[in-house]
């Protein structure tokens, strides 16, 4: 009985734990008008994408994802800081953009999968 329990515990140790990964793909930089940030970590099954300018945001922004085949999904336009949370349906690359006519400092864009 004890041996069986030990074997079961050992087997559980070998099972990889599923945990969310967070990637900050734009970190404290100015984005020009229509400037785009891209997650160069590549495509993943994301469930979260966020753009955070800062506490003074008041202009248009956008977050979205693009599959390797070029299809655009989970495309959300916002006014100000913006997030989109959704089922991880698509293997895709995350993007964020400043959609204002002027440059703006972006504190960070981040995604999760």
């Amino acid at each position, binding site marked *: 009985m004890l041996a069986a329990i030990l074997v079961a515990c050992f087997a559980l140790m070998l099972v990889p734990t599923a945990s969310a990964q967070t990637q900050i793909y734009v970190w404290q930089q100015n984005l020009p008008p229509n400037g785009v940030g891209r997650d160069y970590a590549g495509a993943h099954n994301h469930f979260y994408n966020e753009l*955070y300018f800062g506490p*003074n945001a008041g202009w248009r922004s956008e977050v979205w994802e693009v599959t390797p085949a070029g299809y655009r999904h989970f495309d959300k336009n916002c006014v100000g800081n913006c997030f989109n949370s959704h089922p991880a349906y698509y293997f895709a690359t995350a993007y964020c953009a400043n959609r204002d006519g002027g440059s703006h400092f972006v504190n960070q864009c981040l995604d999760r999968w």
Partner: protein
Amino acid sequence: MRRRFVLFVAALVGALTAAGLLTQFGLGGSNRVQIGDGSISALKRAARAGDALPQSVLAYPFADRNFASPDGRGARVLSTYGSLTLYAVPGKSGMVCLIEVDSAAGTAGGACADRSVLKTGSIYMADRQEDGSLQVVGLVGDGHTFAEADGRRTAVENNSFLLPQVEGSDLTIGSPTATQEVDLGR
């Protein structure tokens, strides 16, 4: 010499005043129409049981960065459309947030911006649908009574509106006496 200088200064002041008036009431006026003072009555009503934001939304980094209180204190349900619920949430540093949660789709989204945006426009989110149209949800300040896109008008309810299947690149929001154009950026 001194008289010339005085005339020059007077002309300069006159020109600047005229330019300012033109900008406010003429050339730039169409995009600068102000409705209300940015107040949101929906945030001032007494709290109800269903006003609390879902824990899943509070767990995102967005909540910690943008909400005035990490637990979303002060949030109010604005409106419900089927499985979609819209919330207003007090934000940090004078911001106010619009949060949408669709329980059936398993989606949530949010936009937080400086409250002054509400004087001349809306804090909105426009989601591109699979057919290419936009679903637009918006938060507006007191005094706004309607939102309109593609010739379809919907009433503002509790400072919020929903416009599904928008094909155009802008929308109009307004009161009985004034209108504002909102660029959707497509």
